[in-house]
């Protein structure tokens, strides 16, 4: 892990176990479906962050507003000085999304557990069903950092530009347009299938090993570099709702140290429903 550009944002499962009772550390399980994960057992002392309720805006499609982030941190007893350790269900996608939003609101010390929930359980580490409680804290966050996020007009504006790279991290079938609206995710459907013109397809999972830990830095550099995704360009990552792409955003930003990477969280569920935007289908995948 030490060869990564910012190794301090990753912790091992062993490190996390050594810090279960560290008062400066708050371990948070970020789940898409808590009933299939946190509620059945979690890292002892870990608090639940429910992705749908806690990380999203209550009414409009958006990430949580700043006041909601402050309330969330307060409820978790976290201050701006707390070390937040994230992991979660679904291969750490939603933990990575939370990491991205916490960075948008300027939290300094956020880290991911390398390998996440899957590795923790695989290694037979302790599991608890106890729900921790914390004394409420006051948390004041700065204005959102817009530099970590792209919106549809931003993406539209850079189409065809050599100094930008679009990375579609979905499955090849989604990228090629064979899947528009997976029936299992009713709110993530799209009117049109395919990908944003010029995007290369590097599925998120290519960045991890069998045990869900991240690949070594040389392999990551080769993976993205081979598709022309290099630090000289500004990179925009997208998927369907921005969760898998936040995993890739994390890799490019913190493991490879690319200077300008954003997550387009509107992703295909916005682009594929938007009127008048160009769509590419069936392009060759290298």
């Amino acid at each position, binding site marked *: 892990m030490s060869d990564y550009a910012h190794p301090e944002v990753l912790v091992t499962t062993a490190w996390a176990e050594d810090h279960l009772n560290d008062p400066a550390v708050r371990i948070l399980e970020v789940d898409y479906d808590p009933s*299939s994960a946190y509620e059945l057992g979690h890292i002892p002392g870990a608090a639940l962050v429910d992705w749908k309720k806690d990380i999203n805006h209550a009414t409009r499609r958006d990430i949580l507003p700043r006041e909601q982030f402050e309330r969330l941190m307060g409820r978790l007893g976290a201050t701006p000085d707390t070390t937040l350790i994230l992991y979660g269900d679904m291969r750490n996608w939603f933990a990575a999304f939370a990491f991205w939003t916490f960075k948008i609101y300027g939290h300094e010390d956020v880290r991911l557990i390398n390998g996440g929930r899957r590795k923790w359980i695989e290694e037979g580490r302790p599991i608890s069903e106890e729900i921790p409680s914390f004394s409420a804290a006051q948390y004041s966050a700065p204005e959102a950092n817009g530099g970590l996020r792209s919106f549809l007009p931003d993406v539209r504006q850079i189409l065809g530009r050599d100094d930008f790279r679009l990375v579609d991290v979905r499955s090849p079938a989604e990228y090629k347009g064979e899947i528009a609206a997976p029936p299992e995710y009713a709110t993530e459907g799209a009117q049109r299938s395919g990908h944003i013109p010029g995007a290369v397809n590097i599925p998120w999972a290519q960045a991890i090993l069998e045990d869900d830990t991240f690949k070594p830095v040389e392999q990551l550099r080769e993976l993205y570099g081979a598709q022309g995704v290099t630090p000289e360009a500004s990179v925009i990552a997208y998927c369907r709702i921005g969760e898998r792409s936040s995993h890739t955003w994390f890799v490019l930003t913190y493991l490879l140290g690319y200077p300008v990477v954003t997550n387009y969280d509107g992703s295909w569920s916005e682009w594929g429903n938007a009127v008048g935007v160009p769509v590419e289908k069936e392009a060759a995948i290298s």
Partner: protein
Amino acid sequence: MGQRRRRAGGEGGGNLLSTTRIHSIDLSGAEDLCTEPGALERVRRAYAALGPGDRLDVRAPVAEHAFAVRAWARKNAIRVVEDGPGPDGATRLVLEAVHGQA
């Protein structure tokens, strides 16, 4: 989801003349693509479709999924009649739907 039949009886007082349907579900590759439900949700749905006495044979190569199935079964008082490595080394859990659904 696959399905096969076996002669019932010997376990739980089944009728020797009846057969028990054994459904199977393989969780390998679950949660790789984000185009299908999560691993446990697939098991929940398969279990909900069982008739009384039917069994669900779950192949769970990932420990996280096996853990979730066990914990969910325990919370819902679902009988796990087998739990251990299958012939290929992957965890195999067999759930029995005594009352049909959890």
